């Protein structure tokens, strides 16, 4: 894995955004070769989305030939509810960029047959040629997407019931009223994300530090599902100083020492303007 450690949340968000930008531009996506991107929700990636929007508005990045697949969506929450992940993606990302609506894919938590919806989602990913880069976050209990502790490490897209920890963590978006938080979600499986050609995990904040420790310094364990990515050939963890608080000093020093190598991935930052015919 690559572990990229930045000083604070803003720098980590910017680094992640630059990385995504470079990956898209280097890929040279076109009408017959789309760049497929897996996307997360939540408070961690907001800074990254803001930077990506900024790059787009500056004319340096286009999402015209990018297809996106979101990780999850609540079950039973109306799509236009302000806390649905459809609303999140529209307000925080899609409405500010030039992505085509039919190239965005988010699970439908109000589908009449949830199982079929999950299977169809897997098929859409396959039809798009698999995911080039899957961006994700980590929960305080070490989950990736909504693969709660105990989820199979080879699971596929399916319905999941949320753990108490997660419901409590989400309560802040529902007026701190636990009864209003949805209890079930549709989520991509650990196996689904493992199938991506590259995985990028964003982890910021001290409250995620223990989960990061469990994910990278302990063994592969279905109680901390992010640990599955130890077995992925191309994973990059991007975190801020606070998220490293539970790691060994040796680990942190090693990876910080590699920053000059890591930075070559984002410097120079490419621009679509350089590739206009």
């Amino acid at each position, binding site marked *: 894995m690559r572990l990229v450690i930045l000083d604070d949340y803003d720098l980590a968000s910017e680094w992640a955004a630059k990385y995504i930008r470079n990956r898209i531009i280097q890929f040279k996506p*076109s*009408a*017959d070769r789309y760049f497929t991107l897996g996307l997360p929700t939540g408070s961690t990636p907001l800074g990254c989305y803001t930077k990506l929007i900024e790059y787009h508005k500056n004319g340096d990045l286009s999402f015209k030939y990018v297809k996106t697949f979101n990780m999850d969506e609540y079950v039973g929450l109306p*799509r*236009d509810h302000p806390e649905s992940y*459809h*609303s999140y993606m*529209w*307000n925080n990302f*899609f*409405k500010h960029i030039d992505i*085509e*609506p*039919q190239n*965005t894919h*988010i699970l439908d938590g109000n589908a009449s047959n949830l199982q079929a919806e999950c299977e169809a989602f897997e098929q859409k990913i396959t039809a798009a040629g698999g995911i080039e880069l899957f961006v994700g976050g980590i929960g305080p209990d070490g989950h990736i997407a909504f693969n709660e502790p105990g989820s199979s490490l080879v699971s596929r897209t399916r319905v999941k019931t949320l753990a108490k920890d997660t419901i409590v963590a989400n309560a802040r978006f529902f007026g701190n009223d636990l009864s209003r938080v949805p209890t079930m979600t549709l989520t991509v499986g650990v196996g689904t994300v493992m199938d991506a050609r590259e995985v990028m995990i964003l982890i910021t904040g001290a409250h995620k530090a223990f989960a990061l420790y469990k994910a990278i310094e302990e063994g592969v364990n279905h109680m901390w599902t992010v640990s599955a990515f130890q077995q992925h050939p191309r994973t990059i963890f991007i975190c801020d100083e606070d998220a490293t608080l539970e790691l060994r000093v040796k680990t942190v020093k090693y990876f910080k020492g590699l920053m000059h190598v890591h930075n070559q991935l984002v410097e120079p930052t490419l621009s679509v303007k350089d590739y206009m015919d």
Partner: protein
Amino acid sequence: MELFLWRRQARHELRCTPVSPRGLQLNVSPVTTTTTSHRRSERVYVGHASSSADSARDTLCSILTSYRTQARVLHQSKKGVSECSGGISGEMPSNKSVSDAPITQFVNCRILKNHKLQWEDLWVREGKILNPEKLFFDEKGFADHKVDCGSKIIAPGFIDVQINGGYGIDFSQASSDIRGGVALVAKKILEHGVTSFCPTLVTSPPDIYHKVIPELRAQDGGPEGAGVLGIHLEGPFISEEKRGAHPPKFLRTFKAGGVADLMETYGHLDNVAMVTLAPELPNSAAAIRELSGRGITVSLGHSMADLSQAEEAVQNGATFITHLFNAMLPFHHRDPGIVGLLTSDHIPPGQTVYYGMIADGIHTHPAALRIAHRAHPAGLVLVTDAVTAMGLPPGRHTLGQQQIDIQGLHAYVAGTTTLSGSIATMDMCVRHFREVSGCTVEAALEAASLHPAQLLGISHRKGTLEYGTDADFIVLDDTLTVRETYIAGQQVWRK
């Protein structure tokens, strides 16, 4: 759909295969595969390798014909775009599930939404404000036209519920061309940002009402002018002492107060949106109940009522005060009179009392305007009470059955110092209100749009920029000067 051909370096084969009943996939292997996105005006770039654009175009056209698909084939060269002669022209079918009507997206603007000015885009389709998130997820749709608003403000169009005429037109006169007169004023007030209004009739004899009311029909606005929401009948059931500029000989009282009195005076009430009356007149309660039962807004004004009489009227259904402070008893600390409704605790729960204010700097002292605004900000409705002379040069003019004098921004009953309506325009009132009250831009704009819409019970379609409401809006700069006016999404005036 337009297909652009351009030269590629290497030789490529040009193949076309239909992908779905509505889509067409063009393969120029190995470089370009283009899938149409199922909408009109889609530009698809196709590379060609033949030595001439013509032969490439011919090949493409014959392929398209064989698949019974229509497209306009153009050639883009360094000199620009030119159409290949003999290209097929036509439209690709659209698959927008809800409507094929064009969608306009206003960008680079601050819109008044949820009581705040926000940097958001405004989307319009078929004369209504469109929900872009629904468009994106449900219809996979996007904008056909984008309009850059240059960082200006977009607010709902102003609604004037008290305007007696203007530009030489007097709504209370049974002229030979009543509809033409209304149309002229409706057209001119677009310049002030007014997209809907209530033509107001002052106290008049019954035959005037019988003649004029049927002619002033409610109608939608458009390029011809602002929309008519309904008539505002200011009188004749008002107080003699507080008649202001209204002619005394046409004042009336209620005999029994019921439908009979109203019908006898007005003729019929079909096009009427609001009636101003004095609640202290005997038998007024029955009239108030009758009118509010018909969905007509009842307003208290030109009255000597004390607070308890006013409160009783509100309990019977009155919801508005006509030009607060003017033509009513002044506020007194032991009997606040009608003004006391602003802070009364006898208002039925869930009901709001609105009050009109002429913020022209003349009818009300700025300090009084501030007191009213601070006491009850949610109820403030800006009105112009504009008279015939609004928009005309200084001099003597006719209003109702009387003569008036214009001097600067003042309009007096001829030969007296009694004010006779104002000649300020709605946008002037909004700017003046903002300036003297120190309120926010949002509050000033809402006092002229949202509040009158709420008063008339039409805020589900007018007075806001909520999704699904009528796309009647104005573009203003930061000095709150109106630059453009739109009705039903169509630009009907620009500066």
